[in-house]
């Protein structure tokens, strides 16, 4: 256990070795000793494998730097291999598919509306026709559509 003097609470508080009560921090070359403090109940012993305490994992940046700096001509968005390719292909498929779907939807939306007749209001589109299934049939009511915000009162401004 390492201690430092906390200026905020004016008491000794626990600290990492680098911030311990020595203005320069603990010297890395000296092996630090941790005496086992035995209390009535068993306590954990701070193992002294290294003089730095890992907080949320070890530093993998140098390895990643070596990996990404290999000059194999692969662009950076595919450098990791298979996971990158999978993500790229999925995104591209959604992009191309999305553009086609968008153009078709806008084309359908641009068609002039048929004049409403009693017969038409009861008509439903064929079941297996995919596009009208994806875009709701035109007989749905418009007046009950809200933007999801509670309607309290509307002023006719």
């Amino acid at each position, binding site marked *: 256990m390492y201690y430092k003097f906390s200026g905020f609470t004016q008491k000794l508080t626990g600290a*990492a070795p680098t*911030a311990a009560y020595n203005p320069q921090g603990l010297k890395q070359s000296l092996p630090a000793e941790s005496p086992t403090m035995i209390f009535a109940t068993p306590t954990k012993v701070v193992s002294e494998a290294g003089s730095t305490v890992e*907080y*949320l*994992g070890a*530093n*993998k*940046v140098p390895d*990643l*730097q070596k*990996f*990404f*700096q290999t000059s194999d001509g692969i*662009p*950076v*968005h595919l*450098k990791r291999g298979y996971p990158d390719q999978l*993500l*790229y292909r*999925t*995104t*591209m498929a*959604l*992009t191309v598919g*999305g*553009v086609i*779907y*968008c153009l078709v*939807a*806008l084309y359908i*939306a641009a068609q002039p509306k048929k004049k409403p007749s009693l017969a038409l209001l009861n008509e439903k589109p064929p079941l297996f026709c995919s596009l009208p299934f*994806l*875009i*709701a049939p*035109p007989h*749905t009511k418009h007046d009950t*559509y809200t*933007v999801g*915000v*509670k*309607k*309290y*009162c*509307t*002023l006719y*401004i």
Partner: protein
Amino acid sequence: MAHQAHAMLYSVDPSPSPLTGAVAALLMTSGLAISMHFHTTTLMSLGLVLLLLTMYQSSRDIIREGTFQGHHTPPVQKGLRYGMILFITSEVFFFLGFFSAFYHSSLAPTPELGGCSPPTGITTLNPFEVPLLNTAVLLASGVTVTSAHHSIMEGQRKQAIQSLTLTILLGFYFTALQAMEYYEAPFTIADGVYGSTFFVATGFHGLHVIIGSTFFAICLLRQAQYHFTSDHHFGFEAAASYSHSCLMSYDSSFTSLFTDEAS
């Protein structure tokens, strides 16, 4: 000197992200229009999914180029800083448009509104209740983000992680409070020009807070993975600048949109 500076710049590899991002924008906007006419959100949701994919891949690529491949030399960083400053300035002007819309209608209220501001029939929110709390929450997050910045500059890993986490939690708290205010508000976006300007301005602001929280969450993951050094942590500084500008715009809304009487 110019030759040396040129050697420290780099050209990015060809990337699909600009195309996928542009298509995401197309799908979201057309999808919004389609959703209003045909009551189906498929196209808009597809656009949102594509946007999230683009955000993930483009930020992943920038991190690879900067942190792992070392391309973010000082001249490159300078360019990134200019870019962020210009982008934030454009966002400020974006909000100025909404403020000018509000003041246009509130400083000279028309007879149709009752000739007064706030308009007749509008029950305004008390600015000293939740809006004041929201202001305090955002100001507190400004404190925690400054603390996180200093911790990063001092090389204090644990403190930086804790301050960043607190910043993100405060951002989420703001969003939750604002969502509750939206639900409980006695007026809606359909309630004349007051409702329109109020919800569009605060709505875009709330979206920016969510963007800021997301940016900080990415910074938190990067800080935990040792990406930031005490000298070089531009991603964090960009997120902090963006959030500070968000905070400023909320302070301005607080003094203009939330008050009971127009100035």
